[in-house]
């Protein structure tokens, strides 16, 4: 299948549109003008017609999300638009490229969204590690202010500081409010009581940028792209053992096989495909066989027992030890667990320990059962999806590559004998270690 023309990256010609004049030259800000001429409800109707769905992971219809924000006369509080630019799901790097190459299209979308939900305050929560992207946005905003494009709307770019959990929308709001990024219980949902307990829409960078496109070409036109239930284009992040990693803007419904083999140039180093993680590290893994049959859209991936997630496709070749993969993925969730709820905080660490024991060759048959049991005890019990993701991802490796886990037990060690690509991969060294020893407190009566 050959890719259709880009719409999110339209006009870039492979480069970047970081000068406002260049963006205007390719029709920039016309969608905004068009939207502002419409009522908020009409903008939402256009979005609904497009059937644009959230690109952050949950695939929730964007227009509907906006329609949940109460009208200003219903609630006497300011409305907020918060844009999730925390992009931290392993495998995902699309929002970054959008901000770098089409910052104005993204910012234009944010103004359209603000108009739709009748908000005057936009916060862009960008992950702290994206320093260049932050600078590009700040520079773009300067140019827009100079042209008075913001109107009465204020846009604050707020930098995160390194915490994956802050991509979860309620944790993000907590963090933006100046608290530890701990997810909130829902309800209330952000649409009713989000930022500062006020009506808030939280949207992903790509969703917002696509909104510009929707308003540009019209909802009905947009809905013609892609497939049923998964309309429009999607920026897929391709990584792992492919020749050409990178972001590819493709219509939904594009075959996964083609992304890897044609656009991605196939598996590197003459190896063969073993498995694919289709939607970021939280999603269920696909075997090579499964990967060859699915298309990149919501229904096809759900049908295969997995999810489109953040559209981050990670291809693994035959050198990858699945137990090592499980260890590393579990280490990630353990490291990123916020520590609020018990099953996630304790369970992810325990899961890592069991996996590491198996990888080290010290595992027993009982540990295999324990692994399953602990994962089941995490899954569905946590406050937010982070802990569940660890259990779901790890269990999918176990279910689909059980022989490999069993081989670790039977051989008393890793069957790859040091040849796996993830061998001995070192997880992050914690920066803020627990206080090693007790501290002295003045006037203490010894306890």
């Amino acid at each position: 299948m050959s890719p259709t023309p880009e719409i999110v990256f339209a006009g870039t010609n492979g480069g970047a549109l970081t000068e406002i004049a260049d963006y205007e030259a390719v029709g920039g800000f016309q969608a905004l003008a068009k939207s502002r001429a419409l009522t908020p409800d009409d903008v939402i109707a256009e979005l609904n017609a497009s059937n644009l769905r959230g690109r952050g992971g949950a695939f929730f219809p964007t227009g509907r999300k906006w329609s949940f924000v109460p009208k200003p006369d219903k609630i006497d509080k300011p409305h907020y638009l918060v844009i999730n630019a925390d992009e931290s799901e392993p495998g995902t790097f699309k929002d970054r490229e959008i901000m770098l190459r089409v910052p104005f299209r993204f910012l234009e979308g944010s103004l359209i969204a603000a108009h739709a939900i009748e908000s005057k305050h936009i916060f862009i929560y960008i992950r702290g590690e994206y320093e260049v992207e932050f600078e590009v946005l700040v520079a773009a905003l300067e140019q827009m202010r100079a042209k008075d494009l913001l109107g009465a709307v204020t846009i604050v770019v707020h930098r995160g500081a390194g915490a994956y959990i802050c991509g979860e929308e309620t944790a993000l709001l907590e963090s933006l409010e100046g608290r530890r990024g701990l997810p909130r219980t829902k309800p209330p949902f952000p649409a009713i009581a989000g930022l500062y307990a006020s009506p808030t829409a939280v949207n992903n960078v790509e969703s917002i940028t696509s909104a510009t496109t929707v308003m540009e070409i019209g909802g009905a036109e947009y809905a013609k792209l892609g497939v049923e239930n998964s309309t429009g284009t999607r920026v897929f992040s391709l990584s792992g053992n492919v020749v050409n990693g990178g972001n590819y803007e493709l219509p939904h419904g594009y075959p996964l096989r083609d992304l890897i083999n044609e656009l991605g140039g196939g598996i590197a180093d003459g190896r063969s495909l073993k498995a694919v993680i289709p939607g970021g590290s939280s999603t269920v893994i696909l075997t090579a066989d499964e990967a060859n049959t699915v298309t990149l859209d919501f229904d096809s991936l759900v049908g295969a027992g997995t999810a489109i997630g953040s559209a981050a496709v990670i291809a693994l070749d035959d050198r990858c030890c699945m137990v090592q993969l499980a260890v590393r993925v579990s280490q990630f969730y353990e490291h990123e667990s916020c520590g609020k709820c018990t099953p996630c905080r304790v369970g992810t660490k325990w899961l890592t320990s069991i996996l590491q024991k198996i990888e080290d060759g010290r595992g027993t048959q009982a540990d295999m059962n324990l692994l399953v049991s602990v994962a089941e005890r995490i899954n569905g019990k946590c406050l937010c999806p982070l802990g569940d993701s660890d259990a779901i991802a790890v269990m999918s490796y176990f279910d689909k590559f059980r022989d490999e886990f069993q081989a670790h037990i039977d051989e008393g060690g890793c069957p790859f004998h040091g040849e796996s690509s993830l061998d001995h991969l070192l997880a992050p060294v914690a920066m803020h270690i627990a206080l090693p020893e007790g501290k002295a407190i003045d006037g203490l009566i010894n306890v």
Partner: protein
Amino acid sequence: MSTLSLYDEIQEIRARYPESLSAVMPALQLAQERSGGWLPEQAFRDVADALDLTPAYCLSIASFYDMFRLEPIGETVIEVCTNISCGLKGAQQVLEAFESELGLKAGDTTDEFTLRTVECLGGCGWATIVAVNNRHRLHVQAGDVPRIVAELRGSEWKEPDEPDA
């Protein structure tokens, strides 16, 4: 820069937000920048003072996030992403190359360098990602490391006579 101007600058940051508590992260980021890349005790006290918070509160915030540093760091911070996409592309070899080139273990700090591993930096398709003082280098391979280190040390880099295959 004097404490007074940190105070004033934090007031400016504060004014950007509907509620001043939101300023705590940017204020800590600023204080960290002013304190040589990490947050000594006094920085917490200054930020707390400027925002009518307690130092304990500021510590609870800073310690939640990986990018706030509670210990002194080297002048150059080298962070190697070792999440799966980079891992599949040889991140561990890149890390080990840094370790041997710098004579440090991951997690170590000298006046000159801090070397550590980090979770996904959001550059997976361009693996391996190495952040040098928060600027990302893409497609880093183990073989590139000696040149990078030499560049960071400001010394002349000479191509080895017989480069390894």
